[in-house]
């Protein structure tokens, strides 16, 4: 019971307030309560808003696909090809990054990806580059991976480890080759963990501003950067609220669609 109250007060209420806020005006750097749709109209008419929207959507989409694909062989190997002892240690070490600062890890990557950074120095040794690894989407993607990869591996691993091995044997027994079994049998059985990992990645990357800001050059901006910029300069909180609401609606839609797809009974 207590949680309902707490959540209502401190979670639902602020979000509702955000909606209310989006209809207010800003005069002389102060907010004036009222009801005016001007913020919505202004935002939706701005080119840069829609640019940022589709860009953020695209970034999150790419991040989701890349992370899920990169995580899978790792999770698969840990579920099927190593001893339970190794698996437990691996799980422990995958949870470790969770206790480090995401910010600090991002900062560390700058050292590597810089124009004079470690990677480019190494490339120079073999006569390659220098490559632009920072302040573009590649940098952002590295940041996203740092944020999400351990989590996705863990989620996929849990599902994969719970796959009933006799079903895999049955597939082999019926003539299904090893690789084919992975796609025809193992992945459908581990569907939940895979989809959960993808959903979390999408949500985290859609709303993240650290990676695009510190590793991606912050321009052109993602929606999250847009919110920060809008509030920092000019105190345009209502406008920021509009962006925030659009983000929430998008995320909720995608989340419910994915969960529905995950639990849909196949005929």
């Amino acid at each position, binding site marked *: 019971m207590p949680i309902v109250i707490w959540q209502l007060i401190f979670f639902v209420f602020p979000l509702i307030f955000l909606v209310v806020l989006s209809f207010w005006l800003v005069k002389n750097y102060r907010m004036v309560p009222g009801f005016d749709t001007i913020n919505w109209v202004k935002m939706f008419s701005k080119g840069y808003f829609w640019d940022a929207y589709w860009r953020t959507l695209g970034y999150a989409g790419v991040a989701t696909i890349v992370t899920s694909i990169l995580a899978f062989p790792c999770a698969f190997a840990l579920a099927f090809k190593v001893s339970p002892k190794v698996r437990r240690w691996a799980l422990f070490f995958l949870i470790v990054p969770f206790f480090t600062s995401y910010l600090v890890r991002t900062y560390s990557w700058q050292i590597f990806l810089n124009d004079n950074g470690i990677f480019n120095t190494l490339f120079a040794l073999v006569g390659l580059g220098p490559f632009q690894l920072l302040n573009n989407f590649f940098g952002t993607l590295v940041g996203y991976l740092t944020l999400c990869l351990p989590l996705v591996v863990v989620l996929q691993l849990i599902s994969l480890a719970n796959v009933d091995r006799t079903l895999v044997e049955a597939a082999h*027994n*019926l003539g299904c080759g090893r690789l084919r079994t992975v796609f025809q049998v193992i992945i459908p059985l581990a569907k939940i963990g895979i989809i959960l990992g993808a959903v979390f990645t999408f949500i985290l990357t859609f709303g993240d501003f650290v990676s695009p800001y510190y590793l991606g050059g912050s321009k052109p901006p993602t929606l999250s950067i847009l919110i920060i910029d809008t509030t920092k300069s000019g105190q345009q909180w209502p406008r920021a609220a509009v962006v925030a609401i659009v983000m929430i609606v998008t995320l909720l839609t995608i989340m419910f669609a994915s969960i529905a797809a995950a639990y849909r009974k196949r005929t």
Partner: protein
Amino acid sequence: MSDPSPSRPLVTFDGVCKRYGNITAVHAMNLEIYEGEFLAIMGPSGCGKTTSLRMLAGLEEPSEGEIRLDGKRINEISSVERDTPMVWQSLALFPFLNVQKNVEFGLKMRQVPTEERQQRARKWLERMEILDLAERDISQLSGGQKQRVALARSLVTEPRILLLDEPLSALDANLVVRMQGVLSRLQKELGITFVYVTHSQSEAFAMSDRVVIMSQGRIEQLGSPKEIYRSPASRFVADFVGANNILSGTVSQAGEDLEIKTTLGAFRCHAGTSDPFAVGDALDMVISADLVQISLEDPNTQNSLRCRFISEEFVGSIVTLFAELEDGSDFKVQTRQRDLANLSLGEESSFFVSWNATDAHLIGAKE
């Protein structure tokens, strides 16, 4: 149950061993399985029966020896390439496919075109009388229905051999009887080889042409159910199969009519065509519980014993009586309920058991 065709064997186990580290699950196994026969492999847990089946399916690799299918060595052929479909104890139906797609699976793996495989799958569903369940989800099926799906799935590819690993162990008792009938009929209609692993004597005996009894990784006896029931080859088999009473003793008079001396007295036994025994040989005398007559008065024959009634087990038309002999050992009698009704036996009452000299079976006792 027909006699198996003793032509060329379909499957041969030649000196097959399986070791896991220090533990030997199967010792040098030699077995021939014939085309078209229903073979049951029976034994207590850990006897190696499932391991042997899995080696045949290619799910385990023999540590030694050769397995041949149709005369060709298959040790190196992976389970994916062998055509040895198996029905699992847990049935192993794919939860993410409906009934029809489950059955189609094997055909899909063999690149059978969609039209054809749908047709063949549906034909099999019809044969197993579950066509109306084709679109259903696996989780919505009852135990018996799942059984039929598992069978259809394995047989749709028309293999020459079907392996079954205790498939009926999870079913209710009355369903088991029905499924036994289904399996029996199916095997006879199809004429393919069934290799059936079980720990249940009733299942093995009810359906099979031949039975292999295994214990601790070795074959104890191989023969028809009747042979094994009436002529157990070792003490283990005598204990494991049927309800047998075993009296140990030594031969005091040799010949066609032996006399065997035991701690409870001397008994006559007709040796028949089994190994000739000499005076002084140690052996076990096996008296099947259903070949024993009971009476309240002393029947005055040499082959009789006095015993004390302990309890009875009533399983329908057959009653098993548990009694104690004068030396404290157990004795079992199986008789029909209505025959027993004529005698009134109470707790601790004493009665006599007797049997014919020709009804006892002899096993040479191993040291």
